């Protein structure tokens, strides 16, 4: 198994390497190939010693929307209901196996009773956010290198460098990005990078009343997330797109897209 994975990673490296060499030969040498791991943050925080992910336990989410609300407060996301770094969706599958999904105002003000209550076969809430993909399509398409994956595995946007072409918004399969109406640059969840680098939890995790969200190290440390990955069956959103999300869901229904 380990060998197979290694082989796959190796093959991918070769494929990616060849592709970028071909493309690079068009535009000449670039400094990006220098992969120096110099410290850019405060000396107290060492990005190379972390690799973050988030677990979302569907069967614990009560759809209160506190996460989406806290996210907007913590990150100054415009309050208008067109811009979300995280939101909650409600799935109602009725007895005809028809799927009804809604997310009024991103779930920030909770949910009204569903219209189809009599026929509910099963129903649940699904919190959504940027999946901080290990193989992020948004980073792949950004023409200028304004969105990137950090050493600790978080996908960020450089607000002072983004040209606002919105190719990344088109490339994100999860609808996790939007164009900030004032900054005119792409914007998205940062895992509350300003909090986690200080040892705090992301705001959505901090306020979740049922611990439906579990934040932590994704690589072999004893942490709540690690335990979740050990004890539960883990699914990710749209695995067929090979984006390799680092937001891991438990009890994820097959209807969720």
């Amino acid at each position, binding site marked *: 198994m380990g060998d197979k994975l290694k082989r796959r990673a190796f093959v991918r490296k070769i494929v990616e390497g060849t592709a970028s060499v071909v493309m690079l030969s068009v535009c000449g040498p670039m400094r990006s190939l220098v992969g120096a791991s110099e410290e850019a943050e405060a000396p107290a925080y060492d990005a190379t010693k972390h690799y973050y992910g988030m677990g979302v336990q569907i069967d614990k989410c009560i759809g209160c929307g506190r996460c989406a609300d806290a996210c907007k407060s913590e990150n100054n996301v415009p309050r208008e209901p067109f811009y979300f770094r995280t939101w909650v969706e409600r799935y109602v599958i009725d007895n005809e196996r028809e799927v009804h999904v809604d997310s009024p105002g991103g779930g920030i003000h909770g949910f009204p009773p569903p219209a189809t209550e009599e026929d509910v076969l099963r129903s649940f809430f699904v919190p959504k956010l940027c999946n901080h993909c290990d193989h992020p399509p948004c980073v792949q398409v950004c023409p200028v290198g304004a969105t990137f994956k950090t050493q600790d595995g978080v996908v960020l946007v*450089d607000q002072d460098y983004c040209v606002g072409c919105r190719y990344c918004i088109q490339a994100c399969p999860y609808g996790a990005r939007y164009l900030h109406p004032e900054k005119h640059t792409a914007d998205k969840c940062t895992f509350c990078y*300003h909090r986690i680098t200080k040892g705090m939890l992301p705001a959505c995790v901090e306020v979740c009343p049922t611990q439906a969200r579990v934040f932590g190290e994704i690589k072999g440390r004893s942490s709540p997330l690690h335990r979740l990955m050990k004890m539960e069956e883990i699914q990710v959103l749209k695995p067929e797109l090979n984006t390799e999300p680092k937001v891991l869901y438990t009890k994820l229904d097959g209807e969720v897209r």
Partner: protein
Amino acid sequence: MSFLRGRLGRSKVDSSKQAVGGNSPVKKRNLSIGKVPDQAVRIGTVFILAIGAAVALRQHFIPESFGELGHYRANAIPVIAGAKLHYAGWQKCGECHEDQLNKKMGGFHKALSCETCHGPAYDHAVVDPTDTEATPKIPRNREFCLTCHSYLPSRPTGFPQIIELQHNPMEPCVKCHNPHDPAAQAEAPACSGCHGEIARTKAISHHSLLRCETCHATPPEHKENPRQNLPKKPTNREFCGQCHAEGTPTSGTLLGVDLSTREIPKVDLATHGNTYLCWQCHYPHDPEGK
């Protein structure tokens, strides 16, 4: 558009002039290099200069930290990591409000962060506790509690929910429940202390009036050493048949339930459900029924 037409005539005149005058013997500078003719050298030089200038300018304008860690500006990271905090974290609240925190830690809201209800408190807890504008809010209205506790079929079974119109309508929740220690009004604390999720599911089900012990004979030692002294579970269809088989009483009381208050669904045990046991189709803690 007239120039389109005019062009033809004018150039005719021009060219005839030239034809008369012939090629004037002006000295021409020829830049040809070997077999490369003059004009190719000229255009080549222009292109090389243009490309050279573009490459030189490009080096000059690339941001300084670009490429240090990857194909991006490394300097963007400290900017993002330096964003302003709004949520302080419950540990910070506990530094001053130890009593409330301790009380909360012993109750059903133990997993709840202070700021889930009181809102972002960094400015109050860290920046300036005396700033009254930053003082966190205390939500006292019923609607706020109902954000989590109103009944929705999408919520996980077992999560405490009320049907708003049936549960003391219009009364503020805080009248009866202390938000820092909201005691659940469960009927059998001994069981629900550990099996709260099942107890709460059952509490809003058709089996709400049945005691846990009715179906699960429980040795007293279970409370001290639960795994070694498991409660019993029903083993056959006849057990459920005590109430649900045809021919069982429809009036009076049965297993402590007053039958005049509800109609119990009855089935023919011999034919209903083939060889399946009852709980293979029905969930006894929340059985669907008429």
